[in-house]
């Protein structure tokens, strides 16, 4: 593929997905540069999670393409078979909001990591890699034997991140991955994610509704509403000079001193009125 500038580790082109009459994802395109961090923001029903699930491969697209390192993961390029499926899993990994639901309650931390490694890299020495991964996410050897319920929310999310990193993916999709955590723990995980990106050059696709988080951890941002992209660009620029009224509404909705919820509520209704016509 002839391309100038930095290579895109992930590219999404003209993605569409309808559930009945609802156009959940409506012509969504964006690109994530190598070692970049892209935030997808929007409210419930904006299509951000469906987009993420299509990128990961948990959902199928009606139209459009998802490319990782220039190779298509969707449509005609998609072949069946176990090996192909595992190869796709090694490209993109996902971390969910609630690590309690994404970890098997009966499997210990070390065993969970070992299982993933055995599936993807049979016949290698996993003990060292497990230690390496635990170390990378800041979990001690004491946590290694623990069951998910014996860990705190932050520790569980570290386990989920370690398991996602185990296959050395090119892209990590984080779907509200820090939303359920306490502020102080959230800060630890966000810092950890920043360190991992610096060390490994992994790309992040951050799905979130929290603009403070987006500002802190992403280089670029895509704002979605009703399944479509309403604005995209450099995070810093979009957040300081939003071009779309919906982006402005989102920004104004973030609580701060002197915040006027009445005005936001009015602006919200006005915007809904406009788009309903």
């Amino acid at each position, binding site marked *: 593929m002839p391309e100038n500038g930095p290579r895109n580790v992930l590219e999404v082109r003209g993605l569409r997905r309808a559930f009945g009459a609802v156009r959940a994802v409506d012509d969504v395109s964006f690109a994530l540069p190598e070692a970049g961090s892209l935030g997808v923001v929007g409210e419930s029903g904006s299509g951000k999670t469906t987009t993420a699930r299509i990128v990961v491969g948990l959902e199928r697209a009606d139209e459009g393409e998802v490319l990782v390192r220039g190779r298509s993961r969707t449509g005609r390029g998609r072949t069946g078979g176990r090996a192909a499926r595992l190869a796709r899993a090694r490209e993109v990994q996902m971390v969910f909001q609630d690590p309690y639901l994404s970890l098997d309650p009966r499997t210990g931390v070390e065993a969970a990591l070992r299982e993933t490694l055995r599936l993807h890299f049979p016949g290698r020495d996993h003990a060292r890699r497990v230690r390496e991964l635990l170390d990378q996410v800041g979990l001690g050897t004491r946590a290694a034997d623990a069951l998910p319920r014996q860990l*705190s929310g932050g520790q569980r999310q570290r386990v989920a991140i370690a398991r996602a990193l185990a296959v050395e993916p090119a892209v990590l999709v984080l779907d509200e991955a820090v939303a359920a955590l*306490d502020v102080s723990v959230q*800060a630890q995980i966000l810092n950890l994610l920043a360190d991992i990106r610096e060390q490994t050059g992994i790309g992040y696709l951050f799905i979130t509704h929290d603009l403070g988080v987006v500002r*802190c*951890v992403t280089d670029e941002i895509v704002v979605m509403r009703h399944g479509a992209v309403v604005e995209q660009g450099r995070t810093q620029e979009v957040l300081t000079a939003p071009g779309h009224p919906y982006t402005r509404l989102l920004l104004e*909705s973030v*609580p701060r*001193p002197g915040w006027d919820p009445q005005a936001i509520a009015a602006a919200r209704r006005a915007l809904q009125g406009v788009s309903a016509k």
Partner: protein
Amino acid sequence: MNPTQPVPTLDIQGLKITLPGTARPVLDGVDLTVRAGETVALVGESGSGKSLTSRSALRLLPPGAVVEGAVRVGGEDVLAMDADRLCGVRAGSVAMVFQDPRAAVNPLRRIGDFLTESVTLTGATSRTDATARAVELLGAVGLDESVLRKYPGQVSGGMLQRVVIAAALMGDPVLLLADEPTTALDVTSQAEVIALLATLRERFGTGLLFVTHDLDLAAAISDRVHVMYAGRIVETGPAEDLFARPRHPYTAALLASTPRMEGPRGRLAAIEGQPPDLREPLHGCAFATRCPLATEVCDQRAPLPAAAPGRPEHRAACHHSDLLEGSAVDA
């Protein structure tokens, strides 16, 4: 506090709750007041005891809890009253709004039934009157009466939370306990719900205890803020003052670890370590092991709340409050 003032809506004094199998109290000497028409925010992280504190106003306590202190609603001690009176408090004077509206309603019953059941069940109100009241309150929360015939699954989360707030107001409560009422909502719906709560507070004079983990939200909406850590109120004061000039290192650290729309980007000042385990006794300050200012005295003696010089309303329980003042802690 001024003795000439009327009886506070909610007055918690020296509340101490001990649960079986723990080495220290889950709540340890909590003092908190909410006056009529006032919004008080209770801020803290998971396990700090903020929800337990708010639930104590309804005497919703975990099994086996040993309780000391007083929790007065309109001057009456909820902890000491008999079952009949308590039933009256729960049905009328104190109402609660929870985080997840979907978990607070029965999905198989129409919203109209959900709204009216609390007042018709006690026999205090007829069905017709209850429905009329429900329609009025739905209007107050910005919904029309067509909602009455709908099922919870047919409305959005923001709409359902407004329904739950309307339901909470059916019994004309003097005190509304809102436990993370907007956490499950989108930011723009959050603004709607907050605007609504503010209007209702002005209109009905309801006292509001707002439990949240969101410091910025607490600062934006409340008159006074209490910050909790490991079962203790570590700092309390007028919202603006407390956030501009925190006098407890925990408050300062929380402020610094929140990703914001202003200020520098990049790495956050995370608080290392974890809150103390309930299974281990506490001898000194609960925050000492994570605190950058901690000295020997912090491990030995639990600090008592003390007022800031010249600001009696702003109190912090820290041996080193004066070191924080004036330093660039809110960076």
